[in-house]
């Protein structure tokens, strides 16, 4: 800037302030990007009940999905009714068949209620239909940035490893799941994996906050930064930077292939794990398999304003649909996570205790756990436990 120009500007400023022209200017809010992220994480942890609460009763969106989803949701509604849970379900039909509700309507329903309980929607494999699947679209539109599941060894379930207690926190909106693909020439397809500092910081902060809030000691970042130097390198850098803000939490990192090997040989070494989307998919499934399978582990998808609860491994269970052998545990435990989120800890505990007692003490096991019981056998036992608990 030249001296003459600067002098003219000062004169102009002086004139404006003397004549009251600067008073009514609205202040410009400058929110730095990382501060916006931290707000998102703080909102996610706020723990206040969402807006759809009237007369002491909550309304929750119910998305049965495909496969075993619908039958399990019927059982959940049954158990909720018996326990006297003040939750009403607004059921929307998001599924693979033609009479499914439009995905945008479903998203609006979840936004309206703030919370949803969801079964998995089956994806038809069609490489000519580009774009996101319904499940992925739901997660990204609602910005459910964290997928959290806890794999805990259960005493009554026979597995090869014992003493596992791992929390897997997976970035849920970007990475390999952006569905940005194109065929550049015939026979050559490019698929984009996007990693951003903003979302990596967000998920890292979520992970460390989780560790602090739940008394966990170590966070391990899982990556493949030796090969994907820029992408996973950025993710790892964000995690390392975030770790500096939490000196009381131990931080380590591990490459995904070594992590897979360690998980099947010594899974007890892991505490909290944070990772991008695809690795999260793999590690969640390994973790769930180690503690008993897809029927046992619940998961939650948390965003700044919304939360969706589902079974951790997101299976439709196509092969066991309608046979009454699906394990309702995962979905039931997901519903108790939802109740905890809704600030209904008493009901959550009642149902959770009944479910765990059925599985661990009474040993009513469906075929996936090596037993002979049907879904209805398990649910009847749970209902009996709830009644016998003296809660009713």
């Amino acid at each position, binding site marked *: 800037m030249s001296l003459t120009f600067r002098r003219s500007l000062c004169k102009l400023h002086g004139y404006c302030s003397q004549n009251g022209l600067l008073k009514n200017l609205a202040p410009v809010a400058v929110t730095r990007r990382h501060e916006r992220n931290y707000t998102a994480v703080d909102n996610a942890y706020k723990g206040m009940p969402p807006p759809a609460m009237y007369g002491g009763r909550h309304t929750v969106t119910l998305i049965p999905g495909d496969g075993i989803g619908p039958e399990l949701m019927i059982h959940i509604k049954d158990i909720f009714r018996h326990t006297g849970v003040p939750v009403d379900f607004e059921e929307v039909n998001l599924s693979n068949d033609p009479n499914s509700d439009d995905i945008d309507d479903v998203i609006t329903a979840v936004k309206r209620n703030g919370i949803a309980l969801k079964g998995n929607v089956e994806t038809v494999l069609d490489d000519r239909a580009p774009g996101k699947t319904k499940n992925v679209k739901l997660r990204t539109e609602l910005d459910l940035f964290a997928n959290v599941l806890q794999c805990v060894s259960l005493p009554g379930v026979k597995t*090869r490893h014992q003493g596992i207690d791992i929390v897997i926190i997976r970035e849920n909106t970007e990475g390999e799941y952006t569905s940005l693909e194109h065929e550049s020439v015939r026979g050559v397809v490019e698929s984009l994996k996007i990693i951003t500092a903003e979302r990596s910081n967000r998920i890292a902060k979520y992970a460390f906050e989780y560790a602090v809030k739940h008394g966990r000691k170590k966070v391990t970042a899982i990556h493949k930064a030796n090969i994907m130097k820029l992408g996973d390198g950025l993710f790892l850098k964000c995690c390392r930077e975030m770790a500096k803000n939490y000196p009381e939490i131990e931080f380590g990192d591990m490459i995904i292939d070594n992590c*897979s090997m360690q998980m099947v040989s010594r899974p007890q070494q892991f505490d909290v794990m944070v990772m991008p989307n695809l690795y999260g998919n793999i590690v969640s499934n390994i973790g769930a398999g180690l503690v008993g399978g897809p029927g046992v582990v619940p998961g939650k998808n948390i965003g700044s304003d919304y939360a969706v609860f589902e079974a951790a491994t997101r299976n439709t269970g196509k092969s066991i649909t309608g046979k009454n052998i699906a394990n309702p545990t995962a979905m039931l435990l997901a519903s108790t996570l939802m109740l905890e989120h809704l600030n209904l800890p008493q009901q959550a505990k009642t149902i959770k205790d009944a479910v765990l007692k059925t599985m661990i003490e009474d040993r009513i096991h469906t075929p996936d756990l090596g037993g002979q019981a049907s879904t209805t056998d398990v649910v009847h036992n749970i209902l009996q436990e709830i009644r016998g608990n003296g809660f009713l």
Partner: protein
Amino acid sequence: MATRIFRSLVPSLARLSGVRTYSREASLVTLIPGDGIGPEISAAVQQIFEAAEVPIEWEIVDVMPVKGPDGRWAIPAKAVESMNKNKIGLKGPLGTPIGKGHMSMNLALRKTFDLYANVRPCMSIDGYKTPYDDVNLVTIRENTEGEYSGIEHTIVDGVVQSIKLITEAASMRVAQFAFDYARNNNRNHVTAVHKANIMRMSDGLFLRCCREVAEQYRDIKFDEMYLDTVCLNMVQDPSAYDVLVMPNLYGDILSDLCAGLVGGLGVTPSGNIGAGGIAIFESVHGTAPDIAGQDKANPTALLLSAVMMLRHMDLKGHASKIETAALNVIRDPDFRTADLGGRATCSQFTSEICRRVRESD
């Protein structure tokens, strides 16, 4: 009668003079000893092969990259020539010096010889107890493209895109190899592992190629499974899987997962198949510089890779002989090396295998 005596004398004379006689003509195999524990385990393998009288001559080469006249780092021409001539190679662990300016050794080899398929048979080792004792599968991984294409860009500050490349040519090639391998090794089930629900076009293309090739191999059962389902089922019941074929990243993760099921990289063999009939068999563990030169190394991984190599070269008899001896020795707690929970040295382990190989004749 004189002829008979003379004929019976020749082998012993030959042995006395140090000339080896084989039942078939000796093949030349390129040997890359490697770094760290590489030389000792390569020596162990050579010793065992000698005891088993395998018709192989070793041509030892060094693959440390040198700077060419054009300023580019490349594998020395002598090594490349040897490999192209012999077609078969055995490689010990190679370390990549950090900060020296040249690329990873394994990447260099892969690019030079167009090693498009990585094969890892994972079999539970009787005698080395892991929570999984019924593993018997093979992972075949596409090794040239996919997520490891190395194409990455920073679009704006804080936003990075990595490109995953899937081509029809590479997918067809690896699928073809997978089915051929299944047929040649009496395997009757091939599973394509993918995530085509999320990456519809790229993994969709890979799947289409696998399906097309499966049409030509009606005798082999083919199915497709999501990567997460495979991981979930693998840790619960690995016996359900036979041959798995998949793109690069999934292959990397799954092959290491399966190696973990049977006991880790120290006991897992691996082979890389390249264009033009080249095959390099290797041990995939690290160079272990902390125990190098102390006679503590475990040559099992390299030995099992060498056995894989023998089967590839159609020397199945020798392969079985060595493999049986090695597995028997591992079963014996007196001769296990430190990493398998024993106290034997590398030389003790090796000599015991040599002894059992000779005894089995």
